[in-house]
């Protein structure tokens, strides 16, 4: 905002500017609160994600071993044939959820494949491990999307707070000071004029 251009050094304008500054400062406080909450949310999310990712990697190794064992034990044609007996695939619904005003996709498993009563025990083990880890990957993906959007919003909020604190509020204060100074100057001039005229009138009266 330009410091002097467009500024009317009047009492009315000064009051208007003071009102605006107060509003902006209150808004800045709310944004700081939002920033702090988002930062806390992000820290918790990152701690959880770190742990979950490494657990899922371990589980994926178990799944991989189980699948290899199934293929070695049953042969590739038999594994494919048994896998063919599974009718449904996963049906997933993606719904929007919100935290601190930040929207992120939330995944809901509507239906999953039914593997009971169809597979050889060796293949059943691989399939049930795979389904477990798949649902954990979905939860992880949801959590990661949430963390990403929270981080994004945190960045935006932080930039807004910085802009308000370092640019907007100081420039408003500068304008207010300018107007204040101008008005004080005028008051002083008025006072001096009044005193001078008073002195002249008093001298004429003598």
């Amino acid at each position, binding site marked *: 905002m330009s410091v002097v251009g467009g500024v009317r050094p009047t009492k009315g304008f000064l009051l208007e500017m003071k009102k605006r500054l107060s509003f902006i400062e209150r808004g800045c406080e709310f944004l700081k609160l939002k920033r702090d909450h988002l930062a806390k949310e992000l820290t918790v999310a990152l701690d959880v994600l770190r742990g979950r990712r490494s657990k899922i990697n371990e589980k994926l190794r178990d799944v991989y071993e189980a699948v*290899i064992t199934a293929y070695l034990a049953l*042969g590739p*044609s038999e594994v*494919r044939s048994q896998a063919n007996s599974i009718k449904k695939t996963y049906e997933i619904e993606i719904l929007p959820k919100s935290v601190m005003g930040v929207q992120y996709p939330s995944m809901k498993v509507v239906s999953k494949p039914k593997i009971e009563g*169809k597979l050889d025990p060796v293949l059943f083990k691989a399939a049930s491990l795979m389904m477990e880890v798949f649902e954990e990957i979905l939860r992880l993906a949801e959590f990661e999307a949430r963390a990403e959007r929270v981080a994004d919003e945190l960045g935006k909020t932080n930039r807004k707070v910085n802009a308000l604190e370092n640019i907007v509020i100081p420039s408003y204060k500068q304008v207010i000071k300018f107007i204040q100074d101008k008005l004080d100057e005028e008051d002083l001039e008025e006072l001096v004029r009044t005193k001078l005229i008073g002195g002249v009138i008093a001298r004429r009266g003598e």
Partner: protein
Amino acid sequence: MRAELLDSNTLRNLAEARDFKEFLEILSKTPYGEELANAEIDVLELEQILNKKFLERLNKIIISSPKEISEFIKDYYIMGLEIKNLKRILRGKFSGMPSEWIARSLIPMRPYLSVNFEELLETKTLEEFVEALKETAYATLSESLRICVEHEVLWPMEARLNGLHVDRIEVSLMNLSPEDRVIVKRVLQTRMDIENLLAADKWGKEFGRQTPPRGYFYRIYGVPLEVLESLIKTRDLEEIIKSLGTPYYQILKPLLEDDVALVRRYLQRYIYEVLRKSKTRSDFAFPAIFFLLTSFENEIENLASIAWGKEQGVPPKKILKYILLPS
């Protein structure tokens, strides 16, 4: 024909090959080499070639064996392969797979018990599939259709197919000599008992402690139903398999670490050793023939597993853990 069997060194070399290409190069120097004219085959095509080779060997032995033995071999092995094909078609029809996809997985064989594979592949639904088997030895499959459709499971029909196979084997068994019957019964009983115990363990994992319905264990042999139900209810695996004694305890021990594949390998090893020791009577008698065919069957399964492992870059140690090396 015994000379055609691969020894453990050759199988080990195959398992330790650098990749699938080297595996095929080593295999081409064995009796399977003449089938590998086209070097650009994949694992599924190789599996079909191995199955064809096994069927050729089966047919040679059937032609040259006495009638009672050849009837038994047909019922034990050829019906077994036919049932494998029926299960593959059944699974495909259950889930609505296209016929071409199902056809690719079928073992290339001539039908045995008046089954028409092309006709079965053309059926559109499970109901039509069962209807098409009406005039065959598998007609009773229709009795399990309702449960399969209602509960969306396949085990009732697969159990019934297994039951029909065992029934047939038990009938043709009666034509063998008493000594040969003892050997086959021992093999059959051990196999059925172990599979029943694995099925009980699996039921417990899938459905909790509820008792399975009638027909889930299509045949009870040495291990009584009470033991199987106790395994499902108590889930006290270690106690139960310890109580079964030798050889079941040794065969089932990997189940304590949930390694069903290794249980099957131990079972295969046990059966192999039983047949190997029983064939000392004569090289041309039934035990020797049964041992030879079982060895061929193990061999093609081993080769398919090794081939897949090589294609996928599985370490040799892992492959060797799950295949049966001959003594």
